[in-house]
């Protein structure tokens, strides 16, 4: 019997990285490798790194060291944004076999295959293709992402991503549509549209809203979710898209700050007023539309008054979740050279304030959703017959089922909010009473 080579993966950072790892899992699986848990020894370990903050760098370094020490005889392949940002440094580390930049990430399986067959090559000789990832078949998730865009030209003053992901490039429309068709044919019920700055999608005159419209027109019982989006200004067509039943009424719109002055210093492409107008326009059309966001606390020069504006904004916009980041200096960015850096203590205090408001907002939003129906995509069912999944508004829902199968939709009436560290909504399949004891 042929002994399969084993491969394990470790992923840090954003949803795009997660998607790219999922695609690599598929590539290795299709190439005959056995994918094993990261805690097991493996012939090949792929670490998909992140470099967006100093903390990300630390985590990436720790993950590399940990993986390499567990697999002293295996290949260690480091890829992702840290591989772009610190390429030469990483290449100088003996424990790392290959450092593969983002452009060549999709070809890692070729590199590893070549290594084992004696055709060793430098990763730089691989052909670059930002959209060359395999269609995900064997995913670790119920929903899958489709990458439509890579890179960013916005050059926000705090962000290193344009330097490590390169300039904005959009995937051809037909490739995207074909990719969605394939993942739907493979059985995925939820497609997350992803990229670095997807709102800037522009392929031969086809804009973001119009490529989404084409995706929504594809046949099949699936829904579409838009991942993290920059609120750079939306056309009327964008708002119209959300009348389509396949498009989830949820957006993760990155606010970063509620202070107009700080937004200018961050060189964001919108004002706080514009952002609030966007939120209000959506809520006028769809009152229970779910907004989540990112906020950076402690950007250089952020005064107490600036921070209070962020607090007020987060309350007013009623984000159901706020992902709070403490500002992290990145060499090579404009913000790194700014005066008036905010102390770590102040950042921690501000972060805690936003975290508490976020929790309050979340519970309030969940309460407001009680007695409403959601179409829940079941991700798992436990031994007690309790299913868990997400509705179209991106709230976690638990309910009793008799059919233990997953990856299917159920219409669920939301009945109660169960608070806790990770609040969840309790419901019952429409037309069926909740089971006793649940």
């Amino acid at each position, binding site marked *: 019997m042929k002994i399969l080579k084993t491969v394990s993966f470790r992923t840090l950072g954003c949803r795009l990285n997660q998607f790219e790892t999922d695609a690599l899992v598929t590539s290795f699986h299709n190439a005959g490798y056995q994918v094993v848990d990261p805690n097991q020894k493996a012939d090949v370990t792929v670490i998909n790194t992140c470099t967006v903050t100093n903390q990300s760098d630390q985590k990436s370094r720790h993950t590399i060291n940990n993986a390499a020490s567990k697999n002293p005889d295996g290949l260690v392949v480091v890829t992702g944004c840290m591989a772009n940002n610190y390429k030469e440094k990483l290449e100088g580390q003996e424990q790392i076999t290959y450092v593969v930049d983002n452009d060549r990430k999709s070809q890692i399986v070729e590199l590893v295959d070549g290594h084992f067959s004696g055709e060793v090559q430098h990763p730089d000789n691989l052909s670059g293709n930002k959209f060359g990832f395999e269609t995900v078949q064997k995913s670790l998730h119920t929903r899958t992402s489709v990458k439509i865009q890579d890179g960013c*030209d916005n*050059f926000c*003053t705090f962000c290193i991503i*344009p330097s490590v992901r*390169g*300039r904005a490039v959009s995937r051809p429309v037909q490739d995207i549509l074909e990719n969605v068709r394939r993942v739907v044919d493979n059985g995925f019920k939820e497609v997350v549209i992803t990229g670095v700055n997807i709102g800037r999608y522009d392929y031969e005159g086809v804009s973001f809203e119009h490529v989404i419209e084409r995706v929504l027109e594809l046949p099949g019982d699936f829904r579409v979710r838009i991942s993290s989006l920059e609120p750079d*200004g939306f056309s009327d067509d964008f708002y119209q898209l959300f009348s389509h039943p396949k498009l989830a009424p949820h957006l993760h719109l990155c606010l970063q700050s509620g202070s*107009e*002055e700080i937004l*200018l*210093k961050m*060189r964001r*492409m919108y*004002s706080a*007023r*514009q952002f609030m*107008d966007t939120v209000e326009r959506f809520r006028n059309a769809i009152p229970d539309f779910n907004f989540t966001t990112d906020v950076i606390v402690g950007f250089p020069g952020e005064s107490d008054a600036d921070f209070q504006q962020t607090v007020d904004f987060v309350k007013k916009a009623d984000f159901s979740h706020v992902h709070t980041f403490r500002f992290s200096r990145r060499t090579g960015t*404009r913000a790194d050279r*700014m005066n008036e850096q905010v102390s770590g203590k102040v950042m921690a205090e501000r972060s805690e304030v936003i975290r508490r408001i976020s929790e309050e907002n979340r519970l309030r939003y969940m309460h407001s959703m009680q007695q409403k129906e959601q179409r829940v995509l079941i991700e798992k069912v436990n031994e007690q017959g309790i299913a868990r999944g997400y509705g179209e508004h991106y709230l976690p829902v638990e309910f009793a089922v008799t059919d233990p199968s997953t990856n299917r939709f159920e219409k669920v009436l939301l009945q109660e909010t169960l608070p806790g560290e990770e609040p969840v909504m309790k419901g019952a399949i429409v037309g069926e009473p909740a089971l006793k004891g649940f």
Partner: protein
Amino acid sequence: MKIATEVENFLLEEVRDINKSTYVLKFSRGDLGFKPGQHLNIGLTGSGQHREYSIYSGINNDSLEVLIKEVDDGMVSTQLRKLKKGEELSVKGPYGFFLTDAKPKEGEKLLFIASGTGIAPFHSFVMSNPGASYRLIHGIRNIDEAYDREHYTEGSYFACTSRGNKGDYNGRITDYLLSDVEEKADKVYLCGNSSMIYDAMDILRAQGYRHDQLFTEVYF
């Protein structure tokens, strides 16, 4: 015409001094395409240090120009000024979206508001669209910062000087805007330091401008 995606080395053609601290860097263009309002990341070849500078020249010029104000102890702006004709500089880009929708339309009134070297994207726009109708308000300290004012259509350029008495208006640009004597425009583009933009935006909103009429680019 190509859009540069990676670092390219271009050759310096001229360093044209405008005043003690400000100069125009002129260099080979190759076949680089750009839109007025976009910027380049420029540094000394091999230094690894780049800074953003808006393109100053027009789209029809054979060479590229950027307008640079030297920063005290700056790692890039001071070094670029020392370059000699024929020496290489490292260029990435072009990037950005500022002004890219500011197409001259019949009857449309455009108001440009700049502070200091924030005038560069407007200079590029004007050089690229010779017949365009616009009004340019430039906030500067002294009149010697009225960079190349003769390049603008007669009567279109208006200097607000915060020091001295040789400006078209002697005072801060925000004080001038508060006087509300400017004819209302259809679109207003602002480029300069964040404090000026922040204050000016408040004034313009109070004067009835909607946010979809206001466009900004921050300079540091």
